[in-house]
């Protein structure tokens, strides 16, 4: 299985990543791209993480997905640092012989990334104030739904 995991400040090319997930035996590729949402007044989103543990945690999540679905390739790219509205935050992609595994694994990966990898978001507003984003119970519920 071809696994690619990156935690980086730089942007990613989602189209190129999807192409890389293709290969011998692949019949379906699922992908998700998370972007910075501006609900009004947002200047930027700051992404902080725990270097070392982040990579370990993402590797564990990918291993769980691979144990659950017959994946042929999997890519997780999570950006950190200062991101402005509409910029990319995260790319998740999974390739398998059939669509069900690819789509389910993609949803599982993003649900678990949100609740089990050490990233923290802080919103910086145009007014100059800033505030840490609180964890959502709906995200916890989504992740638990896979148990």
């Amino acid at each position: 299985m071809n696994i690619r995991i990156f935690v980086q400040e730089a942007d990613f090319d989602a189209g190129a990543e999807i192409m890389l997930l293709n290969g011998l035996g692949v019949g379906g590729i699922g992908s998700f791209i998370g972007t910075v949402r501006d609900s009004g007044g947002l200047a930027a989103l700051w992404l902080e993480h725990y270097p070392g543990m982040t990579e370990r945690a993402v590797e564990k999540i990918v291993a769980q997905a691979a144990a659950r679905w017959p994946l042929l390739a999997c890519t997780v790219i999570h950006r950190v640092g200062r991101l402005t509205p509409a910029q990319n935050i995260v790319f998740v992609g999974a390739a398998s012989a059939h669509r069900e595994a690819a789509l389910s694994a993609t949803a599982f990966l993003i649900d678990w990334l949100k609740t089990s990898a050490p990233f923290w978001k802080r919103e910086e507003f145009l007014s100059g104030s800033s505030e840490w984003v609180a964890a959502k119970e709906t995200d916890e519920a989504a992740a638990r739904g896979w148990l």
Partner: protein
Amino acid sequence: MRVLYFAWLREKIGLGAEEIMPPPAVETVGALIDWLRARGPGYAAAFAEQKLVRCAVDQDFAGPEAAIAGAQEIAFFPPVTGG
């Protein structure tokens, strides 16, 4: 042992990492939180609401009952909000 603080815990405590030597009676994550809380007002503020604090022992998530004996690196942080 090395202790790391992230996000608003880092801001309230005023530092991101430090070396500490808790007494041997401090055996669990929960006991370490109580011990850290007594180190100053920043710590007391950071650990005021324990249900908002998560922990990792040697880079694995750990609950308040987890043992800290022999740990190299213990991190405290808020519930994660990535993705």
